[in-house]
């Protein structure tokens, strides 16, 4: 356990030592503010009933889970896995007295932690940005629901982390892995639109499952079914990913 903890700290230290990671965190922090002019335009300029300030954080989450957060996860996973395989720095990790089981687990835990940080930043920035909307008096109204939505949104994103790491294992450079992750994600999203009945078993279909947790009546049965599917997919991606990582020659 001690070595797993220390390996995870190492993965996080490497991740946050990159300037790119800090810039991307900054982008995630600023995007909720960048959405404000659009909302203001809708509400004031066009006279359309726009987004209530107490719903702003959830609206931002809906938008971010569609593409931005998956993209940030793909970038991190590809750097963390295929980037290290490609530049051979993985050797300096694998030749220490730490088993590959722990190294792979540490990479995934660091990726989950980074995703949680991203969600937290987007949440805080969205809540802060909501106070700049015209009906800012109600901004703090939906905070409980927003917390629930952001917490629920972590699960499909964690599954996406395991899938992105799995795909990245097949590449020796981060850009190749990133491109394929984006293409596969876009294809899964596209197929879900064209063949919705066939894509019910795709975890990508449920990136917005946090919406199920909102509103008066929570559909417990549906939530349980999707939870089971996401958990199952995560486990399959993790175990097969570990299998390939264990076989990897450095």
């Amino acid at each position, binding site marked *: 356990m001690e*070595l797993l903890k220390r390996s995870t700290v190492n993965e996080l230290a490497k991740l946050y030592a990159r300037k790119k990671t800090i810039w991307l965190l900054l982008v995630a922090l600023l995007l909720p503010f960048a959405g404000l002019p659009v909302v203001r335009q809708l509400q004031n300029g066009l006279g359309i009933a726009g987004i209530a300030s107490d719903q702003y954080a959830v609206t931002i989450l809906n938008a971010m889970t569609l593409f931005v957060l998956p993209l940030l996860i793909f970038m991190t996973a590809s750097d963390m896995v295929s980037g290290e395989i490609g530049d051979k720095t993985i050797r300096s990790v694998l*030749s220490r*007295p730490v*088993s590959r089981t722990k190294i792979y687990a540490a990479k995934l835990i660091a990726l989950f932690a980074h995703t949680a940080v991203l969600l937290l930043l987007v949440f805080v920035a969205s809540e802060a940005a909501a106070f700049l909307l015209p009906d800012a008096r109600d901004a703090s109204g939906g905070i409980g629901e927003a917390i629930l939505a952001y917490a629920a949104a972590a699960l499909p994103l964690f599954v996406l982390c395991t899938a992105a790491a799995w795909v990245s294992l097949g590449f020796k450079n981060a850009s190749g892995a990133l491109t394929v992750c984006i293409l596969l994600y876009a294809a899964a999203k596209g197929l879900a639109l064209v063949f919705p009945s066939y894509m019910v078993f795709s975890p990508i279909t449920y990136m917005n499952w946090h919406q199920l947790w909102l509103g008066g009546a929570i559909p417990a049965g549906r939530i349980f079914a999707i939870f089971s599917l996401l958990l199952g997919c995560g486990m399959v991606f993790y175990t097969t990913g570990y299998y390939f990582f264990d076989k990897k*020659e450095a």
Partner: protein
Amino acid sequence: MSEETVLDIEGLTKRYRNGRGVNEVSLRIARGDVYGFFGPYGAGKSTVMKIAAGLVRADRGRVRLFGTDVAEDYERAMKHVGVLIEKAEAFEYMSAYKNLELAARLYPELPRTRIDEVLELTGLSASKREKVGHFSLGMKQRLGIASALVGRPELLILDEPTNGLDIEATVDLRTLIFRLASEERITFFLSSHLISEMESICNRIGIIQDGRIIREGSWQSLKQASGQSLESYYMSQIRSEKGGETNGAAQAIDRQ
């Protein structure tokens, strides 16, 4: 000799898709040995060293480090082993100190002062806060050696450690190996193309060609028998092997 065996390789076979690899390689290194592993490019030196360090899996055979099978209990087997394979690969966006910190963190019992110790040993103290991306090839190689040393290893596996080093740094490295072997009883398994540089520090040698060990044994006894320098001995063995003069007896392992 009843010396403790530190590295025991038995019947190692690995075949890559391109047909290269190693075949039935066996060797044994005792505590305190400085084992020079020589051979032409592509002969299989790095493959043997990578398998010994657990970076590559063998098709057949077994590697034991300090009595523990690498494939069965990697953490225990590697606990006292430092590795530098081919070229030092460090995280270029981090400083030398931060790179060593990553390595040191994986040895819970290590004092923090150890990082400064190895920086001092490898002559990198002045550049410890510099990003590795700004390092020369020789500095990166020194950092690789520092990183291999950070966990206080009892066995160092160094594959071409003199890569990229200038003459002064090569001599420094030779002195460092000699000092670590004699004063701290660190065992070395090292390969190098600078055979003449290695002659004065190796007490045992192995020569590998086309994936097979063609000679192995105490350098002292091989030197006495041949009356040659290590470089001349190496060349004669490689040439005689190429000329097909080697018979089965040549593969007999001298374990004196």
